[in-house]
């Protein structure tokens, strides 16, 4: 079993310079705002969760060659197809050919504001004591994940310090696999950049947010 993400870019070389952009330039083609809104509206049906959608996008074989909203569209089609909610032939025909699948909710225009305002908090009541405390030295696990994960590759096997504990949160790894929320303690872990990359400058730290299963004793 293997899982290949194309999104774990932190620390990679060769992607070139950053091109700044003025405030207010949200979209760069007419289809982009529709693609954005379609993705949010379909997310509101609860046919999948946010972690499943991240997994669908980051494993697209052509991820690296697609623009941002092209990734969203391809991810959306994939999520729909996997659930029998869309067939390629329907995109070609530009009309529904298969009967709909029942969804938990349809986002009505009148509810947009309240649904956005509610969001989807991931904090959950603590069901156990935290293993780590502020100031503890920890090591990020080194194994390469065989499923969606939010531990960036550049910290795997590296030592850092617990900077803050955030209570228990929905565990993205389990949630993305449809295994329920399986909440875990979430920590901000701070790493000295030189420990991550020998060419990093002194006086530079990088913090990641890591669930407890990502961390072990140093």
């Amino acid at each position, binding site marked *: 079993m293997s899982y290949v993400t194309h*999104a774990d870019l932190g620390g990679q070389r060769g992607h070139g310079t950053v091109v700044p952009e003025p405030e207010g330039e949200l979209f760069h083609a007419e289809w982009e705002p529709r693609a954005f809104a*379609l993705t*949010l509206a379909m997310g509101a049906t609860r046919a999948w969760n946010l972690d499943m959608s991240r997994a669908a996008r980051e494993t697209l074989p052509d991820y690296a060659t697609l623009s941002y909203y092209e990734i969203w569209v391809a991810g959306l089609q994939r999520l729909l197809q996997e659930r029998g909610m869309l067939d390629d032939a329907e995109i070609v025909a530009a009309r529904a050919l298969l009967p709909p699948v029942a969804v938990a909710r349809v986002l009505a225009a009148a509810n947009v504001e309240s649904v956005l*305002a509610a969001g989807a908090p991931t904090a959950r009541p603590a069901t156990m004591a935290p293993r780590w405390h502020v100031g503890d030295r920890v090591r990020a696990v080194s194994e390469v994940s065989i499923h969606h994960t939010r531990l960036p590759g550049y910290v795997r096997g590296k030592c850092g310090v617990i900077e803050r504990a955030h209570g228990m949160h929905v565990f993205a790894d389990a949630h993305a696999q449809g295994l329920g929320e399986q909440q875990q303690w979430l920590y901000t872990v701070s790493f000295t950049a030189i420990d991550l990359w020998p060419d990093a400058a002194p006086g*530079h730290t990088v913090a990641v947010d890591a669930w407890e299963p990502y961390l072990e004793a140093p």
Partner: protein
Amino acid sequence: MSLHDHEHEHSELGEMDLRVRALESVLTQKGYIDPAALDRLIDTYQTRIGPRNGARVVARAWVDVEFHEWLLRDATAAIASMGYAGRQGEHMQVVANSPRRHNLVVCTLCSCYPWPVLGLPPTWYKSAPYRSRAVRDPRGVLADFGVALDDEVEIRVWDSTAELRYLVLPERPAGTESMDEAALASLVTRDSMIGTALVNKPAA
């Protein structure tokens, strides 16, 4: 860019236009979506939820010591008290710049960004150059934005790898003592709240 590239770009845009239109038609016919909700979603992020929200939070923190303290201690509640909450800002963290420390926010794994206070992320924030380099070479990234910090300034990069969303509280520029909250907010740029810019005092 050559003529060929232009033609290529145009044909791709046309293809995406058709594909997204087809998708919207099919999903509407199946009853999964309400097209009017799409219009409302787009309008919300084009007119109501954007970086002016965050700028008001920053300006409030600059003039109100108690709010400043609350913002650093419980950013989610402090920001919600100004009416900014919800999707992609459910759990907020504010990190304050100082003369000795500069903060920079990134999401190396995708594009996590504090929507209620900054709106939708700019293209560069979602791009491979920013996501790859911000963690490893933040001074190089800052140089792309025309920002040079003293060597002594510590740089802290926050990689948004879970559902916490980060907002940088930039330093209030000197020479703004006489400005009120609204005037201060007008100085605060989106990039200064991501950490790729500093806030400058207005030209005299």
